[in-house]
């Protein structure tokens, strides 16, 4: 069995994995990273989205072996020192979740979206999150949350740049 080494939420894991093992199953079943859920089997829902070397990836469509040597951040690794990431806060503030099943993937995808467009319009948030499905919220509050998160993140960055 291939041996891989991955860093997940700051911890390094050396694992022997079947070549067919999906990254999301490595995370959930082997590493206990159950914060990242699975919503489909056709890469449509985005519930399983994580950051793979800084960019969002649907962990159900990546093999664990493909992640060898990668740095992975899941929803569980987002907050630092007990402080939520601004995007987590924004989702809470804007009531952008109900059952919360889509939320980890939404938050990870939203963070990635801001890489390319730090101040997205409503329309670009809607387009940018097309690969993440939510059955509960109707998306309005998610759109609000992402734009709120974006503002807070840029303010934070500005704050950091001026200090």
């Amino acid at each position, binding site marked *: 069995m291939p041996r891989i080494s991955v860093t997940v939420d700051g911890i390094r894991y050396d694992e022997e994995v079947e070549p067919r093992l999906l990254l999301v199953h490595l995370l959930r079943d082997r590493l206990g990273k159950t914060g990242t859920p699975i919503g489909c089997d056709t890469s449509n829902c985005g519930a399983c989205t994580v950051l793979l070397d800084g960019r969002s990836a649907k962990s159900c469509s990546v093999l664990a072996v493909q992640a060898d040597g990668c740095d992975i951040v899941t929803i569980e690794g987002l907050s630092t020192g007990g402080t939520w990431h601004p995007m987590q806060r924004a989702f809470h503030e804007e009531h952008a*979740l109900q059952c919360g099943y889509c939320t980890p993937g939404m938050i990870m995808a939203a963070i990635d979206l801001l890489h390319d467009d730090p101040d997205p319009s409503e329309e670009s948030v809607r387009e940018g999150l097309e690969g993440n499905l939510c059955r509960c919220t109707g998306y309005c509050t998610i759109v609000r949350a992402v734009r709120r998160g974006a503002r807070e993140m840029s303010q934070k960055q500005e704050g950091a740049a001026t200090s």
Partner: protein
Amino acid sequence: MTEQLDAGVAARQIKESDVLSGAGDGREVGRARRRKEDARLVTGRTQWTDNIQLPGLLHVAFLRSPMAHARITRVDTSVARTQPGVVAVFSGQDFAAEQGSLPCAWPVTEDIVLPDHPPMAVTEVRYVGEAVACVVATDRYKAADALDAIEVDYEPLDAVTDMTAALEEGSPKVHEAGNKAFTWKFAQGDIDAAFRDAAVRIDRTYVQQRLIPSAMEPRAVVAQTDGDSFTLHSSTQIPHILRVMLALTTGIPEHKLRVVAPDVGGGFGSKLQVTAEEVLCLLITRRLGKPVKWTESRSEGNLTVHHGRDQLQRISVAADADGRIRGVKVDLLAGMGAYLMLVTPGVPLLGAFMYSGIYKMDAYDFTCTGVFTTKMPTDAYRGAGRPEATFAIERIVDELAAELGMDPIELRRRNWIQHAEFPYTTVCGLTYDSGNYEAATDRALALFGYDKLRAEQADRRERDDPVQLGIGVSTYTEMCGLAPSRVLGSLSYGAGGWEHAGVRVLPTGKVEVVTGTSPHGQGHETAWSQIVADALGVPFEDVAVIHGDTSSSHKGMDTYGSRSLVVGGVAVVQACEKVKEKARQVAAHLMEASPDDIEFTRGEFRVRGTGTSRTIQEIALATFAAHDLPDGFEPRLDAEATFDPDNFSFPHGTHLCAVEVDTETGATKIRSYVAVDDVGSVVNPLIVEGQVHGGIAQGIAQALFEEAVHDADGNLLTTTMADYLLPSAADLPDYTTDRTETPATTNPLGVKGVGEAGTIASTPAVVNAIVDALRPHGVHDVPMPCTPERVWRVLDQARTTAQSTDGGL
């Protein structure tokens, strides 16, 4: 909050002041509290059923029928048993003696055909996806691998996919007793008189396509036993009902069975079920003495989570020349699918009383025939019966307006129950306790800019613009707060509709609330905390809500039918009242006053007219110590209450939708959507807004995108999320929402329920808008989902018909 102002509409927006103070009287109820639930959900510290890991946990995978209808002639599991990691393989035959039949709790008529429904098929399969065998293995991959090694021989039988065809003489039979499950009738008033010499009569047929509920969390089950008792974790909406039903089905005594609904990722009715997989996982764990887990894949779920809707509605309305509605007649075929599951036959009955909508009329006649087909059974899906009824009445009222050349709002005004007429007993026999259709409609019209849009519509029509504007109106009401137990009994439902709550004040003054409702996204932990904070005068943060586990919350009827707040929330209030009365006794004793002289405000018991007082926290500690209590007083500051409502509740509202339809491509774009809902008093406006948004999205999805499609052989063609089109953020508009508040008079909170309102209202609003856009082209209906292709075909046909008529003249 500037975000919301960006919309540039003066709709009610949730402001920071709502969060801080609600009505400004220091009360928690009415405040837009951020949810307590979010902390674990945004950080990934969730407890989904599939997260559960146990020592020695085995994984179950099901082999499912590839045929819609077939006799099983042979199942050979011998090779599968030898595969790596395989612990056991079972076929239906292995369970035949003990699996019983999946329950139907709602046999709507005495002569209903109630077919045996084995959790695992033994001799015959009746829909694609029915379980025929299963593998139990050491991991999920190995279990799935070994499925390939099971051999099943089928002798194909004819599929029956169309309801009308199923009822024809000589149709292949789904069950020996035939394809008609039941016929249920209801009539009020003289319907013949209403239709006889009516100035206008309109007849329409509407198809409520089959839908796949698609909660984002796939179902999952974990079953375990210590050899004596059993614990079942399931992604369910109904842990309490499930426990009773599983005990009856499997023979495991109720007191030896604990059912837990941990975090549940949405339900929308789809997890209001007693599923084959739940029963089978229990049986497997009983056989093997080992814990087992089953988690469905999405494709498996699309096949085997019960579907929704699937009705063929023939509806007729009779009216006077001035638009006054005289009567409505409904003849319904309701698709049951292959079996009757928990409330399958009852779903159309939940709509039966809603076809009169908000309108006054003299007579009503309803017939519903339940029809078996070789498809996955249907059952509750958000709104359950009421969206179908609302769709039909709201669509046909628009048709009536068109026929009479009247504005659809004006026609509605002439017919709806006036605010001054409440309480009003409708032709269907329901007493609507309160409502204000005028207020909600006027508010919606103002927010929508109705007159301006009508002007634009006229202009586009005038110019023969290829992109036409349509305006859709939906003035809905619904019956929720399920339900008065007596009414359920009179409709042959197998259980009551009460709800239970327990409230206990702990020695330190913190409060635990035990609720029989079972949230899966609705925010009960937050809303119940707000209610208790007000009732007992304790801080919001000091309240914890316990739910979803039959060992800690022993009694409940769970969550569906917009009932949690209206029934369960009221039970919480009543339990708080009892606790307060106990505390008053203690307070009076401690302050040496008569209980009658004790006032209670904001957590403080005060002797009237004096400065002497005790806080509820002090009372809690004194009760715990029990050193100095009134004679005979039990040292406990807790109470339980079970609330059984006298009546349903009737939220209502006006939804307006503007669409642009491209007559060349058939593409529809929702340009604006305004929803003004009246859900009575509001505990948490943030949660209400969320429920309305999500509901509207699901209703729009039925109107525009979703359909479970089967081929003639009964194969489901929409098994994946790539084929079954759930709308993404890019497919949906922003909504303008507002509320009017006409409190319910039937419960102390004044609440009416909000979980299903949006879904019920929005589907007809959207379809009415599309038809309105195309009416000048001779279009009277577009079947759902109104995809560009469908719209284009309807237009094309209308044009062809127009041409041939012209040619003939």
